[in-house]
């Protein structure tokens, strides 16, 4: 390339951001969680360009937000991360007068312990962690964790690659509080977690449905949205909430204190709270939609999917555990290493 053309190109590149100074919104959200249709629809309606940056864990989001390299206008923390963010004054109180569609949300997803006054967060999608069974391969009834983690199912199980999850399952199986991650409790569950880890073939949080679909495993303890997609694909899969106690979670949308475009963030929040928009989210990601108005627009088949809309008795979410997370991490690393 001749030097003049190179120079011209460089100038063009440098000038480009100035040329398109349209209003922008920096959205920092889970990968595979906000449909492209929704983002495009928002831009079409408001003229605001959305920069969708993604992460693979709530901790990753928190870590990048704290480093402060970019000004995110909207983040999408899970419940226990939101709790830590509220405690540490990292979230901005919402202006409810700008959220006309807030009434669409079902009351059972509001006022939960992570944000008791619902001042900082808006539920986006919720889900449960439950058991998927390939009923063609596993004929006996599976009701809970004890039924999944049996020696005869060795190397036929996939679980989410989430250290806190597996430890919490052991806690509830032994009748302990899933959030009481004290050193004493960790010592109590250690033998049980050790036994379980030996039976697992795959740990995968990103796409635990893949080994089930591929026939590499027959049982899974996975996110309900993954299970819902499996059931959509093939009716041989069934979804069970563990009898010992299921873990439901809420993914939220919130505005960090460092946000630059607070007005656009509110507009986006109100937009995704709209019933027709929220329905689009459910169409693509079949988790439990907390938007009651949107649920009415779903097909009977979508609403009948047992993984999307299970019969849940108690909404017992994860709480912020602060520094105790390091102990959980070490326990699981140690047990995975030992096998």
């Amino acid at each position: 390339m001749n030097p003049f053309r190179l120079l011209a190109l460089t100038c063009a590149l440098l000038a480009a951001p100035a040329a398109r100074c349209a209003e922008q919104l920096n959205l920092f959200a889970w990968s595979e969680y906000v449909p492209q249709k929704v983002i495009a629809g928002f831009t079409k309606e408001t003229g605001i360009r959305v920069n969708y940056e993604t992460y693979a864990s709530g901790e990753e989001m928190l870590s990048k937000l704290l480093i402060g390299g970019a000004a995110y206008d909207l983040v999408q923390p899970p419940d226990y991360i939101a709790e830590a963010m509220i405690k540490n004054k990292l979230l901005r109180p919402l202006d409810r007068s700008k959220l006309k569609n807030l009434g669409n949300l079902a009351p059972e997803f509001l006022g939960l312990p992570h944000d008791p006054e619902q001042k900082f967060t808006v539920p986006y999608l919720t889900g449960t962690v439950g058991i998927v069974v390939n009923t063609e391969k596993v004929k006996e009834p599976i009701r809970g964790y004890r039924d999944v983690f049996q020696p005869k199912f060795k190397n036929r199980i996939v679980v989410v690659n989430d250290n806190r999850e597996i430890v919490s399952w052991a806690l509830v199986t032994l009748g302990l509080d899933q959030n009481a991650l004290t050193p004493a409790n960790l010592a109590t569950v250690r033998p049980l977690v050790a036994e379980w880890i030996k039976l697992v073939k795959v740990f995968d949080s990103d796409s635990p449905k893949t080994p089930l679909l591929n026939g590499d495993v027959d049982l899974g303890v996975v996110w309900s949205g993954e299970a819902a997609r499996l059931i959509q694909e093939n009716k041989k899969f069934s979804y069970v909430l563990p009898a010992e106690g299921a873990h439901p979670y809420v993914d939220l949308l919130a505005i960090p204190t460092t946000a630059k475009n607070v007005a656009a963030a509110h507009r986006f929040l109100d937009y995704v709270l709209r019933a027709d928009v929220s329905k689009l989210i459910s169409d693509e990601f079949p988790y439990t939609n907390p938007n009651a108005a949107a649920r009415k627009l779903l097909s009977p088949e979508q609403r009948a999917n047992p993984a999307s809309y299970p019969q849940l008795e108690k909404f017992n979410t994860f709480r912020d555990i602060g520094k105790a997370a390091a102990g959980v991490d070490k326990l699981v690393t140690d047990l995975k290493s030992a096998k």
Partner: protein
Amino acid sequence: MRAADTSAQRRPGWAAWLLLTPLLVWLLAFVVAPAAILVAYSFAERDELGRVGFGFSLENYGRIADATYVAVFARSVGYAAITTAICAVLGYPVAWCLARASENWRHRLLLLVMIPFWTSFLIRTYAWITILKSEGLLNGLLLWLHAIATPLELLYTPTAVIVGLVYAYLPFMILPIYGSAEKLDPALIEAAHDLGCGPWRTFAQIVVPLTLPGFYAGVLMVFVPAIGMFAITDLMGGARVPMIGNVIQDQFVGQARDKPFGAALAVVFMLLFVAVYWLLQRRAAEREPA
């Protein structure tokens, strides 16, 4: 000869420094500074969000000595060593044949070694999953040939991890050895034959010593990154056994929320690199006079 010596020993003038500046700035900004930050972090304390706080502590290094993490380090080194050995055994003959091929063929064959780099590494790893999975291509082929009665358990095993690692790093072994082998003057081999050397002796006493620099470079380029690899162990190994890369990642962006400890692990990891590099350099230097 004398003139060349004195000019090489002359102190660099301002023009030389000017030319060096971009490189030095780059090194400072992207190598020295991040490494310094990592070292500083590794002695720091953390708050409950995992942020690095002030305060000096040796606790992070104390924790590395824990049997859990020593085992993780040892396993990572073990996998990397096996990968390097297999890459060397497979890569050396390939590199040698490439270097000896006719000019026309050499370029085509080299292209074949490079083509995989045109596709994303993750996509190629997913391709291996398609091949190795229970209902995958390999099992399908073997079942069709009646070589096996039930599908083999290939994916999510240590073997799958090694296959993935060897596949990913083989080109990094082939290319440097090829570089050395190509420069080797065929006349030297002819001379060895003329002086009565058999093929084995020629190989051991002429070919191997002359291609050793490329071989060492290959070992370094495979062994070092293979220790820290975590995507392959997650995707093809099912994340069943943690590698040092997984553990470090978990401290920074994972659930452990413990950057100082992650930094300490990374510093030890870097020292390991330096040790391997230094050992190989010393071996190479010892060979030189001979």
